[in-house]
């Protein structure tokens, strides 16, 4: 089912040969050969840049032209994420929970829960310095099921971070980040960052002491960003001040105030969920494009190929 683009990309690793024979040669020759190999590799990569549509990254992100055959057209339908949200067929080992832990799927279900409870919370929450914390108290004490919704959202957020990390841990343990799934690992890392950003922006919204100081500390770290922060390396030399650096852009001011609350609210409720959803679609689609969920056994056992089950 997977047409395995990207698996045939450049994998030239000349440096490996040089180190294998290193025992017999003098270190100088090894160094020279290594440098030569690096040079050859760099030349290949520069050559590849002239045709960007042939590179792995391009083929992973953008559409690839296939041969005009009935087979590839059928594959186009079969591997279309919108037509087949669930795969047409899966490896039977892929349903074994002791292998996958089901963490990716459960993370997604928790995300759905968070979107739903979060949308309901938005009906009672004003992102304004005057009433934000009072709205939280109102939700907790006066809105029917408000306490339940708020706690579902809060604990669900904690759970999602834990699950994303366990999912990543499982993928790491089973080596599922390796070729041909390395692109999906990168998408997964982006999703981890987006999950943490969702957690962080949601932290400020209750406008309590905990969230206020957490965001004070978190955005003060951004002051030390290289080039873009006014306390970071080369920041001052590039003319960064507390009034034009990356922290100012995050807070909408030089202090954590009403602008910061509003910005956190919009990033939390609109921008990051949309970005994360788009990356999730790509993430799920790539799972199938890369040959389904990785498993301990090949898609079809050799014995099964030789001796099909007789009816």
């Amino acid at each position, binding site marked *: 089912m997977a047409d395995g683009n990207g698996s045939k990309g450049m994998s030239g690793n000349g440096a490996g040969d040089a180190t294998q024979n290193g025992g017999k040669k003098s270190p100088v020759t090894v160094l020279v050969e290594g440098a030569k190999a690096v040079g050859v590799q760099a030349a290949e990569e520069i050559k590849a840049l002239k045709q960007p549509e042939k590179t792995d990254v391009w083929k992973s992100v953008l559409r690839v032209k296939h041969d005009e055959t009935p087979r590839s057209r059928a594959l186009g339908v079969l591997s279309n994420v919108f037509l087949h949200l669930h795969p047409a067929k899966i490896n039977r080992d892929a349903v074994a929970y002791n292998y996958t832990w089901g963490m990716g799927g459960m993370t997604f279900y928790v995300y759905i829960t968070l979107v739903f409870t979060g949308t309901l919370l938005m009906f009672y929450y004003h992102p304004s310095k005057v009433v934000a914390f009072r709205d939280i108290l109102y939700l907790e004490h006066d809105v029917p099921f408000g306490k339940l919704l708020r706690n579902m959202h809060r604990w669900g957020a904690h759970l999602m971070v834990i699950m994303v990390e366990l999912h990543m841990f499982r993928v790491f343990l089973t080596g599922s980040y390796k070729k041909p799934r390395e692109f999906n690992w990168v998408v997964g890392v982006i999703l981890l960052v987006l999950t943490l950003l969702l957690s962080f922006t949601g932290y400020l919204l209750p406008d309590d002491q905990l969230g206020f100081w957490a965001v*004070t*500390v978190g955005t*003060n*770290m951004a002051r030390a960003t290289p080039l873009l922060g006014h306390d970071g390396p080369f920041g001052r030399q590039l003319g960064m001040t507390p009034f034009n650096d990356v922290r100012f*852009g995050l807070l*909408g*001011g*030089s*202090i954590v105030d009403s602008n910061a609350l509003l910005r956190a609210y919009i990033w939390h409720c609109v921008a990051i969920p949309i970005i994360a959803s788009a990356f999730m679609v790509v993430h799920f689609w790539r799972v199938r494009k890369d040959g389904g969920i990785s498993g301990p056994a090949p898609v079809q056992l050799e014995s099964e190929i030789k001796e099909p089950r007789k009816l």
Partner: protein
Amino acid sequence: MAVSTEKPVGAKAPETKPKPNAADALKKIFTSDDPDPQRIVARRRRFVIAGVLGFLSVNFLMFLRFFFPRALYEPKTKFLIGYPSDFGFGVDTKFQNAHRIWVVRNTEGIFVISAICTHLGCTPDWKPSENKFKCPCHGSGYDPEGINFEGPAPRPMDRAHVELTPEGQIEVDLSRLYRWPKGERSEFNDPGAILHV
């Protein structure tokens, strides 16, 4: 064009260049004597793509600029805190809530500490019983003059510019801070960092 009289006689007259003309430039861009029509189409397509990408990248820059407003509605950084005689020896925390400062008088004079921990920007607490400032976030400790002695703080807390108004009141300017970064010159004795009263 008139030939300059300073030039030697017989020197070649400078070539007159045709004036730049928008119509000619456009004509040059949009017409071609290339015999291959496909190459002409490809060139036009590149022009259109470049135009679209240029438009989108300018849009993106505008999007980034949008997040940096020109005017802010933040608390005033310049304010009066009263007369020097209002402040006794030691740390005065009465302006902590209103202005996020402490007024300190020692044997040298009166100075104003900006109540921002130099680690990650929380407000330390003044602990009178322990005679120190203690930051609740990560435990940085400062002595009554704001000099760090424990925890992750990298330098003493900054001091605000102070001066006496003609009426004799103390005016604090939080936008002018005096720092003492580790291993560098202390700015705490600069004029304006401390009132010798």
